[in-house]
């Protein structure tokens, strides 16, 4: 038996959370150090898993499997493949940097870090789960601390509204997905006689045709997958911010404290997209094939719409929140292309967006903590006061607007390639409008560049107000470490895409095999 890396990664945070709660309340510094140690351990282990994953072998590695509730076919089953591995690494990066930049939280840091770690456990758990029940288990663990984190430590003006909106959206979404998953469980069980939540076995059974039957709905017969795919897909995609179920997310981002915004936009939204891929698309490929072409239109709206709204925002957090909606739209857009390039880009975009949006929220949080405003037009001249923050924000902005040399470009380029070729006659053909929508969605790149550059210019350059000139100081060393970590990830993937490309390739090839090659 090898060292159970994945279990350790997924359970370390929750154990840390319990340990943190055992600290005396007034030992704030010790709590912080312990939290950082826990986060560093997660990052270290996820880096280890990332770099020791055997790309040439592909498939699921670091697999662990134990019976959990055998009567119901529930197991504890974890493993990573080329798609989930970068996600685990991303979570490691975000928890590490999130703890670093939350150093200054003085209101009950013990409870704050504990909840943050519970959240992290849930996220890690979803990414490594190969059992459907277990996936939902961790998924709910990831969602519930959000409510507390936002409602207690959030921005006083909107925190209750936002926390409630977010929680309701996500719970309702997950309930739909759960119903869909149960439908799948019973259908497979009925067809094969084996009731199992094991996703690999479900996929096998699906491939063998276990879901090839019709169900009656209002008197008409429709294929099982066509009925249930949208329910499962949208249930998860809500968390991925799909239009028109996106609008919990900007409110949530804004109200959340900085580290939670980073987690939320950086990792949690990927959870939705990832689960939509794993449970929706990969387990019901026939349904996906049928529904994704029209879902592509929604994702297109996501991309363009999000960028336009982001442009009118003057509150920096709202701006980034809507830009996340737009960029997560690119992820779903990639999924909806049904071809290799789209999936490659989508998987890369999940990582790229996670890192860059974490950076954007982190840097805006740093500015807010010192200048006490997030209004773009009230700021100015911050480059002089905090050059590192400017560098970090600018790098993230460049990545976000698809500048070559940064991770964002390595993601956007294949997505556009996929979208384009899905509309062209040939092997990947889906429907002609794919190409047109791809061209139009390129507008979003220009708009993105516009609002980010204007933000950089207003916030960091120009005149500094008298008050800020006197009271705003530079960020701490820990903040700089966080900025450096995130920037390194963005540039490394942007300049050396082979650090991630081949791994993602091995993962999505398995995903695409369910569509019969391509």
């Amino acid at each position: 038996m090898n060292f159970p890396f994945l279990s350790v990664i997924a359970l370390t945070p929750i154990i840390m959370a319990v340990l943190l709660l055992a600290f005396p309340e007034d030992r704030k510094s010790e709590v912080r150090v312990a939290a950082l140690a826990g986060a560093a351990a997660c990052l270290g282990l996820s880096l280890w898993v990332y770099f020791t994953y055997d790309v040439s072998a592909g498939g699921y590695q670091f697999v662990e499997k134990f019976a959990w509730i055998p009567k119901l076919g529930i197991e504890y089953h974890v493993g990573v493949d080329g798609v989930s591995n970068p996600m685990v690494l991303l979570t490691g990066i975000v928890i590490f940097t999130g703890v670093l930049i939350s150093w200054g939280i003085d209101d009950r840091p013990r409870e704050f870090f504990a909840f943050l770690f519970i959240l992290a456990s849930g996220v890690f758990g979803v990414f490594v789960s190969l059992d459907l029940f277990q996936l939902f288990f961790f998924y709910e663990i990831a969602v519930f601390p959000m409510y507390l984190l936002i409602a207690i430590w959030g921005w006083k003006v909107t925190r209750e509204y936002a926390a409630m909106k977010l929680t309701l959206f996500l719970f309702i979404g997950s309930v739909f997905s759960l119903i869909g998953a149960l439908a799948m469980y019973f259908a497979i069980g009925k067809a094969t006689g084996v009731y199992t939540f094991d996703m690999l076995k479900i996929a096998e059974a699906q491939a063998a045709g276990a879901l090839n039957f019709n169900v009656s709905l209002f008197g008409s017969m429709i294929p099982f997958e066509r009925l249930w795919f949208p329910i499962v897909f949208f249930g998860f995609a809500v968390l991925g911010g799909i239009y028109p179920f996106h609008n919990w997310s900007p409110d949530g981002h804004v109200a959340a404290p900085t580290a939670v915004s980073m987690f939320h936009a950086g990792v949690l939204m990927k959870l939705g997209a990832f689960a939509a891929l794993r449970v929706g698309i990969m387990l019901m490929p026939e349904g996906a094939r049928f529904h994704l072409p029209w879902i592509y239109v929604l994702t297109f709206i996501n991309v363009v719409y999000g960028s336009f709204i982001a442009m009118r925002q003057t509150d920096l957090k709202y701006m980034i929140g809507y830009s996340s909606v737009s960029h997560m739209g690119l992820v779903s857009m990639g999924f909806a292309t049904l071809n290799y390039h789209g999936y490659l880009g989508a998987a890369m975009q999940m990582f790229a967006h996670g890192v860059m949006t974490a950076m954007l929220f982190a840097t805006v949080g740093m500015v807010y903590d010192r200048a006490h405003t997030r209004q773009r037009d009230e700021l100015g001249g911050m480059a002089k006061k905090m050059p590192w923050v400017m560098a970090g924000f600018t790098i993230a902005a460049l990545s976000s607007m698809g500048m070559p040399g940064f991770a964002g470009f390595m993601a956007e380029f294949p997505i556009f390639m996929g979208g384009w070729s899905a509309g062209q006659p040939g092997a990947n053909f889906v429907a002609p409008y794919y190409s047109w929508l791809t061209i139009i969605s390129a507008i979003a790149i220009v708009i993105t560049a516009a609002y980010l550059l204007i933000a950089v210019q207003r916030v960091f350059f120009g005149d500094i107000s008298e008050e800020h000139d006197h009271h705003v100081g530079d960020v701490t060393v820990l903040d700089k470490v966080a900025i450096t970590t995130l920037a390194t990830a963005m540039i490394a993937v942007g300049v050396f895409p082979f650090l991630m490309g081949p791994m993602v390739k091995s993962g999505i090839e398995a995903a695409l095999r369910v569509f019969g090659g391509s």
Partner: protein
Amino acid sequence: MPIETLIWLIPVPPLLSFFLIWLFANRNKALSHTIAIVLMAISWIISLYVFLTAITTEHFGAEVFGHSVPWLPTGDGALNMGVMVDPLTAGMLFFVPLTCLLIFIYSVGYHNFGGRLDPHDVHSTGSPAHNGVEPMYSRFFAFLSLFAFGMLLLVVADNLLMMFVGWEIMGLCSYLLIGFWHGRNYDDPKKITPRQAAVKAFMTTRVGDVFMMLGIVYLYFHTGTLSFREILYNEDVLHHLAETPSYIVGLSVAAMVGLLLFAGTVGKSAQFPLHVWLPDAMEGPTPVSAMIHAATMVSAGVYAMVRMFPLMSAGWHHGEALTPPMMAMGFIGAFTALFASTIAVAQRDVKKVLAYSTISQLGYMIAALGIGAYIAAAFHLITHAFFKALLFLGSGSVIHGVEHGVHHTHEHIDPQDMFNMGALRKKMPITFWTFLIGGFALSGFPFVTAGFWSKDEILADAFVANQLVFWVLVISAFLTAFYTMRQIALTFLGEPRTHSAEHAQETAWTMTTPLVILSFFAIFAGFVGVPEHFPALGELFHNLNVNRFHEFIGGTLIEHPEAVEFNVFPLLASIVVGVGGLTLGWLVYGWKPLKAGQPDPLAKPLGPIYTLLENKYYFDELYDFIFVRPARWISEVLVYQVMDKNIIDGFLHGVARVAVAIGIFFKGAEKVIINDPPDRLADFTQWLGRSFRVIQTGRIQSYLLIVMLVAVAFGGVYYLMLSGLVK
């Protein structure tokens, strides 16, 4: 070391110097420029070596130097990153690193190295130094180095993706450098600040870039590769692309890709209708204007078109109908050439004139490509880089000189306005003579300037290929000569019109040396391209083995282009407009020099046309009206307020309200049906208890009394029962 390794090394030194300056030298000014210049010089030496190897290699072109490595895995292969040097690249390697190096040296003087740091400047970072050395000196060299890296990367790239990477790095550096003086503000609110100009430049070129990216995507989709060698040197691929119909009826895939890529060039090389950013980009420091907006970056757009020419012209043969991308290039290029030169005539700012002149000259090259004059375009690209860099650096020197005067006299005047100058030839002789050479080269002064030979070649080709393009180019050549003379006369001739001009001073040797070197090339670079059929001179240079440009660059193409027959008419036209324009300019501005405060002599005869030209045909206002405002409206009103806030949030809040209402109803119902009865029961019990309380007095006597009364009562009842009275 194998030549392939050397080619990989060409872009590396500037990148290295970017990091070195940024990380280790950002407080040491001397170290910063030393690193930048030394490493740039290394790049230049390697490039020169590669260039010399290339021109001495037999049949270079059929054989090229190249090497590539896989970068991003794709479906069945990988996108490669690689370098390649073919004759065209070799030509670029001759002038790009050289001009970069000269501009680096020039920047040392431009930013007053050696001057003391004005304490006032330290406090107000982000504005140009008032007097003394630039406070952000190190940062300037870091950005400039990064820019040089981007340009060299683009030049040596062997595929479109890597070229695009270099292209975008330059776009980024252009943004950073235009906005270099990010703290600068003007009293006039209508005047664009460097920060705004930077965003404008980035955004405008970005529009073109997005199309270019789509073009790359489309090309990749059809060929499965982005390598130049596999696409451009492969007749089968080109043939296939030219034959496959595209999505749009009537266009082949090659044409569609060509048009999309051309859109990128329109942005980068500031062609109509995306020309608006370049004049405003003059807000950057002058070496930046010279480097980015004359010698390198804007040329990169033309270079990309020259590079992609086999694709742009796929399916076209000499003398046949032009392909759609060529037609687009021909007309947009020629139109831009004329259009920009008319605006240049009415500009007051010494750098703005040059900016419009650059747009116009780039239009020349694009037009040349459009009519198939591949070599002429490449030739003009190189000569123009030399003389335009010279002119920009010269103008920087002029501004620097006048600024010196401004500091001396404390006058409040714009040191870039040519109407505040005059008679600088006496104060700044080196600047004057080199500027004169550059100006004459730009005007195409016959026989002795490089500009003449390259422009003449374009005109000769245009004369054969397309009369309309020819005449448009001839008119714009005339205007070019006219505004150049206007500029020279206003700046250097006559009497000083302000005290500042009177106290102007020649600039440091670091600034004048690059001017002298560039003016050498502004004269002699033309002789390599003297047509062989040219009377007398052609023969002469052929015997000297100098004019090999045509043959050498022609080797880039599979089908070696034929030189056009010598024709005396375009030659005469070229001489007449060049000399005529200069003469007319001298008659208007040099014959009777302007006095201080006197308006432009053109303003009166041209009337409203002059105003129109002065305001650049109101394109900024027009774009604001048709693009910027609608985009704002969509984002503010349509998607944000109507869709997000009213419809989606409205629906959500409606649902929430209904849910709350249901909750309130249930709460009420619960109160009446479930909550109230037990409460009433409890109330009753309580009432009962309260009622009985009065008898619980706590006094033994009362209790005994009650006991007695009860006993009596019970006794009475028993008595009555036992006695049979009650049954």
